[in-house]
Every structure is written in structure tokens, then in C-alpha cells.
């Protein structure tokens, strides 16, 4: 069974923003994405975390219609990605490293947005550029990484999209630019009730802003769901060395480590574990993500 979002939704909105079923993408003989099924509810901020090359960009680029899946289907707000200009207008995208037209000025980029979109918040965009203290006449090719990311975010937001997809938006930024970027993003999300999917190879980049999480490794989705629900349904158990690995009290062993005759395991279960030999601890998000990333290295050991 492939990971699906747990049923609990943190807000009242029940409609699905992005619904992917068995999405796969192959380049020659290499699979960039395999059988990815996810359901992203509207109005949430979803963090997509995984190592470089795990398939995050591939998934996001399929969602915005820049890539075509080799198999599977995806609907965004009920329609195929990039099906027509109306659908393109509903989805904002910030590509990795924030590509811009190097020889065009900041102002040209705002004009470009106005000419290429039927819905365009020109005043808002101009206001944001003013707040960022960007020179309207400066060529985009000479902007710093942080300024480029901010300009690209401004373009994506000025479309007034319903869904915003951000591919590694803060990867190349220094800590200050990172903070500014995230602050602005969160202010916009709060104001316009956007659905956001943002990826990073670092959990720390996205855990503060996301309420949902998707963990990817080796072109597959390892786990996906509401963060609070995920944390509530996983236990960190420490007890005597145990082989073969079976979780006390049932549940799926996600990852296990042996050390000095004791075994520490991350177990997915909704029931409390009552076994005098085992002590139960709470997981933090990082331990949870690491457990799922480690799972790929020893899949047979965790088979229940």
C-alpha cells in the first residue's frame, strides 16, 4: 500500500488541490519518479523533503505541467496540469534556482507578467518590489541570489494563483535572505489562503512553515501526511535486542538500530504500546524523516 495522507485535516477545507495517482517518470532506463500517489488538500502548506535526486523536482514539474508523466495521472484543482491558459493561471511556479531572463530588467519582468497573464496584481507586485528595494532598471542577470528568488516569488504571487509550487526556493540563499524569503512567503500564504507545495533537501528549511509533509527517497514517496497526525501515529521504542524485528504490540517497523544489546526502533502504530520491556518515547519530526529515509536502505529488515 502506498502512502496516502492520513484522513485528519487540520482545517475545515476538504477539497483536494492536487491528486496524483501512480505517477511515474522515466528518462531512458532511469526512473526519476515511481508510482507516486499523493493527495494534497487545499489550503495547506506542504513540505516536500528528500535528498538531491530523490525525484522532488520531477514531481513538482509534473504538477505544474512542465513535464509529462510516463505513467499515472495527476489533477490540479480538478484539471490536468497546464491544460489551458485558465489552468496555467491558477498555478504559480518558482523553479529551482529561480531562472529569470538575464538581459531583461526587473521592470521588464513585471511587464512580462502583466502581458502573459489575464489575472495580474501589478500594484501588489510593484509594492513588493519597492519593499525589497530592488532597482527597477537593473538587469535580472546581475541580481543576487536572494533578489532573484524574491523577484521570481513576486512574479509567481502576482498571478494571484490558487496553488503555489516552489522548487528548492531557499537552497541557494544565505541565512538572512532565507529568513526574508520565508517571512514574505508566509505572509502571502496567510493573506491569500494559498495551497503551497515547497521542496527542500533540508528539513529545517521547511518544517517551520509546513503543516503537511511528503518524504521522498530514490524516486519514491516514503511517507506523506499531516505532520501532527504523522507524529501522533509513530512511536520511538527502546528495549532489548530483538531479531527478527517485530514491533511489540504490532505496527510497522520503519527503522531500527541495534546498539550494545538494545534495539531502538521507529514504529508506525496508532495504538499505545504497553510492554514492560520497552520504553516509549516521542518522536520529533527529524527522527521521523530520518527513519523513513533510512528505510530505503534496508527494506527487507522492516518488512512486517
Amino acid at each position, binding site marked *: 500500500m502506498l502512502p496516502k495522507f492520513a484522513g485528519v485535516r487540520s482545517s475545515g477545507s476538504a477539497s483536494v488541490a492536487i491528486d496524483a495517482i501512480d505517477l511515474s517518470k522515466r528518462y531512458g532506463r532511469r526512473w526519476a519518479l515511481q508510482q507516486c500517489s499523493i493527495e494534497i488538500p487545499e489550503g495547506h502548506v506542504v513540505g516536500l523533503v528528500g535528498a538531491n535526486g530523490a525525484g522532488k523536482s520531477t514531481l513538482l514539474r509534473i504538477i505544474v505541467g*512542465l513535464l509529462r508523466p510516463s505513467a499515472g495521472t495527476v489533477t490540479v484543482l480538478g484539471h490536468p496540469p497546464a491544460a489551458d491558459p485558465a489552468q496555467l493561471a491558477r498555478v504559480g511556479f518558482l*523553479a529551482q534556482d529561480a531562472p529569470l531572463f538575464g538581459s531583461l530588467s526587473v521592470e521588464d519582468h513585471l511587464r*512580462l507578467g502583466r*502581458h*502573459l497573464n489575464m*489575472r495580474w496584481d501589478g500594484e501588489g507586485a510593484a509594492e513588493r518590489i519597492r519593499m525589497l528595494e530592488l532597482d527597477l532598471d537593473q538587469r535580472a542577470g546581475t541580481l543576487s541570489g536572494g533578489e532573484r528568488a524574491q523577484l521570481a516569488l513576486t512574479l509567481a504571487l502576482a498571478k494571484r494563483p490558487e496553488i503555489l509550487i516552489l522548487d528548492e526556493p531557499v537552497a541557494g540563499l544565505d541565512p538572512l535572505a532565507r529568513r526574508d524569503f520565508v517571512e514574505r512567503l508566509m505572509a502571502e500564504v496567510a493573506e491569500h489562503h494559498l495551497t503551497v507545495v515547497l521542496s527542500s533537501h533540508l528539513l529545517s528549511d521547511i518544517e517551520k512553515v509546513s503543516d503537511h509533509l511528503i518524504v521522498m527517497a530514490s524516486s519514491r514517496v516514503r511517507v506523506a501526511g499531516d505532520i501532527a497526525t504523522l507524529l501522533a501515529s509513530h512511536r520511538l521504542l527502546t528495549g532489548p535486542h530483538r531479531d527478527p524485528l517485530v514491533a511489540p504490540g504490532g505496527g510497522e517497523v520503519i527503522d531500527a538500530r541495534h546498539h550494545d544489546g538494545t534495539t531502538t526502533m521507529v514504529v508506525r502504530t496508532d495504538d499505545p504500546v504497553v510492554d514492560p520491556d520497552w520504553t516509549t518515547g516521542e518522536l520529533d519530526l527529524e527522527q521521523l524523516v530520518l527513519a523513513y529515509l533510512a528505510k530505503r536502505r534496508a527494506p527487507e529488515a522492516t518488512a512486517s
Partner: protein
Amino acid sequence: MIWLTWRQWRAQALSALGAFIVLAAVLAYTGPHLVHLYQASGIAECQKANGDCGPLIDAFTSHYPLAHVLGSLIILLPAILGVFWGAPLVARELEARTCDVAWTQAVSRTRWLSTKLVTIGLGAVGTTAAFMIVIAAWSSPFDKVSANRFSPAMFSQRGIVPLAYSAFAFALGVFAGAAIRRVLPAMAATLGGTAAARVTVQQWVRPRFAAPFHISGAVFGRGASPTVASNAWVVAARVVDAGGRSIQVRRGLLRDTCHIPEGQFGRDSLRVCAQRLGIHEVLTVQPANRYWSFQIWEGALFVALGVALVIASFVWVRRRIG
């Protein structure tokens, strides 16, 4: 979309316009002098009198070596525009990943590509047309005295075919850019592909647009024999023996075969000897009145190839990229 297309192409379009204005100014300045030189050369009178005008023509054409440069410009311009305007059209966006921006705005890829293709494609054809018209006007005294417009070199410099070459080279550049996805290799492919297509058509396709005439005549005759109209295209000339096989004529061999005495050896005795042996020259000729139908055939051929490449480019941009 037109705004973005123009904004991205503006610098190149204006440089082309600047180059055109400079050239047009130079040609407007030197043109009247060239006409004057022609009138003063006496070539027109000489030709009316059916004299041997070769030395006069040589003297006149040596005045402006620029004419050859301009001729080469018309031949090269379609390929240059295909390389610099066509090839980067998709490839540069893919290389700089700006297509990630362009293709996620509320404009379909079809509209993105068609706007660019129409605007810049018409720009390329129009640029070629503008350069050709001013250069042809300036060169008209030269065209009068020397060039046969149906000859392979001149055929591709005048009429409608340069415009068709331009449309073809541009479409080839766009397609190569979409298929190869890298600017420099796409440029190289465009240059190579345009050259290959034009040489192939000129050498092997153009002579077959209509069945040629074959004209026989004596070898070692007076002047250019056998005689054909000066504006006809002599596709091939070969010397054949009585059995119709192509041969190389060696004067020494003819002299020995016919036992021409030492004192009588010359063009007249050789002609008589060749006639006796049945050796004659055969010209493959496309008559002068086929010039425009050949222009239309060749123009249509390149436009058709260009249309096929445009269709392929749409398929690539819509379906293959991504």
C-alpha cells in the same frame, strides 16, 4: 506574448536594421557612379554591334569587387539568420531555463511558439528581402553585362528563392534548437543543414524540375558552340564519340588519328577530324523561359520543407520537451 517576443528579439532586430541602413547608404552613394561607369564603358553599344565585348566587360566589372561580397551576402544571409535567430529561439530558453518561467504563465506553449515563429520568422524573411532588393538594384549594371540569371550562382541570389531559403533556414534553426536543446550545437546543425539542403537541391534536384533539352554541336567550332541563348542554363556539357559515350578530347590523339600534317594543325583541322570521327559536344540545357517556373518550383520546395519543420517544432515543444 508579442510584447515579450519583441522585447527579447529587439536588440537583434535593431542591429539588423542598423546594418541594413548602413549598407543601403553605401549602395545609394555608390550606385549612381556605377551606372555612370556602365554608360561610359561602351558595353551596350558593343553588344548591339555583336562585337567581342569581353575586354570591355572585364574592365568594367573590375571596378567594384564589392559586387562579389554583396552576392555572397545574399547567398549567406538566410543561413546566418537561421543560425542567429532561429536556432536560439527555443534552445536558449531551454538552456537558461527561462522556459520554466514562460511556460508557467497563463499562455499556452502553442501561442508562445506561434507568436515567436510568426514575428521573428517574418522578420528573417523580410530582412532577406530587404537586403536582396537593394543589392539587386545596385548590381543591375553588373547583371546586364555578365551574369546569366539562370546560372547556379545567380539563380540563388535573385527572384523569390532567397526568401524561401530564409524561411527554410529559420524553421530549421527553430527545429534544431527544440530537438537538440543546446544553442551552439543547434547553430552548427542549422548551418550544416542549410548548406547541405541548398547544395543538394542545386546539384541534384533543380536540374530535374523539368526534362532538359539536349543540343549537339561540333567541337572546336567558332565561339561557344553549340550555341544556346545567353540566358539559358547549361546544366552539363560533355563530349561524346560516335557511339554516344563520353570521352576526353586530346588534341594529340586527334592529330595522330587523322594524320594531320604539322603545318595544318589548328582548330579548323581538328574540327574536321572530329566531325569525320563522329565526335561532337552535347549540352544539357534548361531554356531561359523556364527561369520563373524553376524559381517557383524551388521556392515551393523550400517553403514546404520549412512548413514541415515548423510542424515538427510544434510537436517537439508541445509533446517531446517535458
